[in-house]
């Protein structure tokens, strides 16, 4: 594990360093670093939550490649619920968005229930089951999106109504504190405070994702529930013999996984941008799976890997600010296309196992027959 953490730290440092190199003439390095770290944490949120979804499913023995679909469902239904609450039932913005988050969780959980039924009760090939989830989610969200918003006879008369917005950024007054300490509104001391604030001030789902990483880790490795979950994923026959209900544990954990994936979807439409587009998850569910594998099926490892992918995405976003400053010999970086490929290529490199082999739970992907 240590080898992998070092790899992650080196790559993140390299990615941040390259942005600093490009932009240091225009903006103080400290500000750039803070901006990169802040963006990394934010954009890693759906990956972190997706990876946690995978950890719970696979620790209990169910391979979940349907995270992408559950995330998409969460994004769409969360957004849809927030709009309904806001423009049809007349709730104000914040309660509408919170109801949206709830709807996202429920829809993620329902798709997970379907996956659980397929793979646990009907013993379908689990990778096919996950693919079914993905295809159904694309179909359902695409159909409803068109039917509800773009058809003349629909509730909204062929117009996408105004979404109630996104969750607010939480503010912790570090800058103000530093202002008092430094006694000035400028200078390095003040910039440090400001930069720290930039990193710490995240939105609610991003913060809950980090909290959930540690909560999940505690549950999996320090509670009876966690022990039972892991035992049905490693050796269901033995677990069954000592009286653990294998089917119940698997169902419960897959549904918990669905809640995580739904929350990841909520991040996309209720925290990041207030709009939905078909296929907007754009592979995040699969990258999250790679993060889970790289993190060796542990919450904290998966989070570290998610941050790695997040920083690759943050690189693309932050380089946009400094487009004009990129020197000619690094002109290829101007093509956001080239930088945009980084997460995908990183995923493939990581999966080759050059940075350490990982071991899945022993009964991962195998249906249990009593």
């Amino acid at each position, binding site marked *: 594990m240590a080898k992998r953490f070092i790899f992650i730290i080196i790559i993140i440092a390299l990615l941040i360093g390259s942005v600093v190199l490009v932009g240091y003439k225009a903006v103080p390095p400290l500000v750039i670093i803070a901006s990169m770290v802040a963006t990394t944490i934010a954009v890693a949120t759906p990956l972190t939550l997706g990876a946690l979804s995978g950890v719970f499913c696979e620790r209990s023995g169910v*391979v979940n*490649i349907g995270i992408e679909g559950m995330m998409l469902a969460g994004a769409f239904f969360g957004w849809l619920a927030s709009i309904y609450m806001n423009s049809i039932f007349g709730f104000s913005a914040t309660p509408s968005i919170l109801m949206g988050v709830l709807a996202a969780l429920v829809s993620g959980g329902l798709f997970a229930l379907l996956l659980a039924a*397929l793979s646990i009760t*009907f*013993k*379908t*090939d*689990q*990778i*096919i*089951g996950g*693919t*079914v989830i*993905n*295809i*159904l989610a*694309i*179909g*359902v969200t*695409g*159909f409803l*999106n*068109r*039917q509800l918003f*773009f*058809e003349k*006879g629909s509730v909204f008369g062929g117009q996408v109504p105004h979404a109630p917005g996104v969750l607010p950024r939480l503010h912790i007054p570090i800058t103000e504190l530093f202002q008092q300490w430094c006694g000035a509104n400028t200078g390095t001391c003040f910039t440090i405070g400001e930069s720290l604030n930039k990193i710490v001030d995240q939105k609610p789902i991003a913060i809950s994702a980090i909290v959930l990483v540690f909560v999940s880790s505690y549950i999996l490795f320090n509670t009876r529930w966690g022990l039972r979950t892991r035992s049905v994923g490693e050796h269901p026959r033995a677990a069954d013999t000592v009286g653990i209900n294998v089917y119940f544990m698997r169902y419960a954990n897959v549904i918990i996984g669905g809640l995580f994936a739904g929350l990841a979807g909520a991040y996309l439409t209720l925290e990041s941008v207030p709009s939905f587009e078909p296929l907007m998850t*754009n*592979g995040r569910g*699969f990258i999250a*799976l*790679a993060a889970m*594998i790289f993190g060796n099926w542990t919450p904290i490892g998966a989070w570290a890997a998610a941050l790695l992918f997040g920083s690759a995405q943050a690189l693309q976003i932050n380089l946009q600010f400094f487009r004009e400053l990129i020197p000619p010999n690094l002109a290829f970086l101007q*093509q956001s*296309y080239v930088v*945009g*490929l980084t997460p*995908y*290529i990183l*995923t*493939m490199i990581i*999966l*080759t*196992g*050059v940075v350490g*082999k990982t071991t*899945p739970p022993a009964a*991962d*992907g*195998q249906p249990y027959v009593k």
Partner: protein
Amino acid sequence: MQGSETKEKKTPGRARQLFRSALDAALVPFLAIFTALVIGGVIIALAGGNSIQAYVGLFEGAFGSPKALSETAVWATPYIFAGLAVALAFKGGLFNIGVEGQLALGAVAAAWVGYALPGLLGITIPAIIHIPLAIGIGILFGAIWAAIPGALKAYTGAHEVINTIMMNYIALNTVSFLLNGPMKDKDPNNVSARTPEIALTARLPAIFPDLRVHWGFILALIVAWLVWYLLWKTTLGFEIRTVGANPDAAKYAGINVKKLIVLTMAFSGALAGLAGAIEVIGLNYRHELGFSIGYGFDAIAIALLGKTHPLGVVLAAILFGGMRNGATRMQFLTQIPVDVISIIQGLILLFVAADEIIRYIYRIKVKEERLVLTRGWGG
């Protein structure tokens, strides 16, 4: 988990037995389609449409006239190739979700051969060379793009499911970059991301005047037969199926499993690349961004509905092609968005994959061995 081959017994009533087993094999897919259509009908009714009218429209639009049939064949052509690509990989125990990307790369490569190569060489290439060349390059790019995750699987154990998906994103981003940049149609009237039109010498002719169905459809049928021949009549095909059924047994039988994994993926990608190339030289005469969205996922459904058998794939592809084609008329008649077809197709896949649900609803006893298609992350 072990999959096993169905044994063919040489008994007197073999023809009858074959017929019976074909009927048995078709029963679950048929009921899956039926159940999905019933649920689809409920969804259409809930959305405020007339389900009967919608399905009549769907059928008319798909098979109701020579033009409808021609358009269905046009839709079915890439579906046959792409479905065969997924089915072939399944036979070798591999899940190729990367058909989408392989298809797009094959299409863009064939388009380049079609529009740029004559100018580059400064000659007019005769059709007899130009068409095979465009197809060949399309196949090559598709094959290479699939062989990469194949090699990663064989030599590092990295699971092909995630890698083919990653290769999809890399391919689609690359194609989008090419079509917006270096390969963009320079025509002053053009605002979309597309290549210039390919030369006349690179185009596949239509079969009938006034109808769009082209020789690519016939080629697809021939290729389906070739895939069947490869899988069941050659040593290589036997090896592919053995590796798919039980890689450990294959290894002990002296088969080079690693080489076969790469080869199977390359074959699969070749078929996907062929799908893209044929779309360009037979139908669109250029590659345009977004034309192929969704073929990859549809191909998985088609391969599973066809029970990974080439004949089944052809039938499933014609069904899916018909649904996509007829959906336009359905929307015209009932104002139900064409996207409802995606839900119905998803449901078909659901019921085919989880055939226990179908067996439970219709009380069918299990007669055949379960199809084991993929395994967990361990390979």
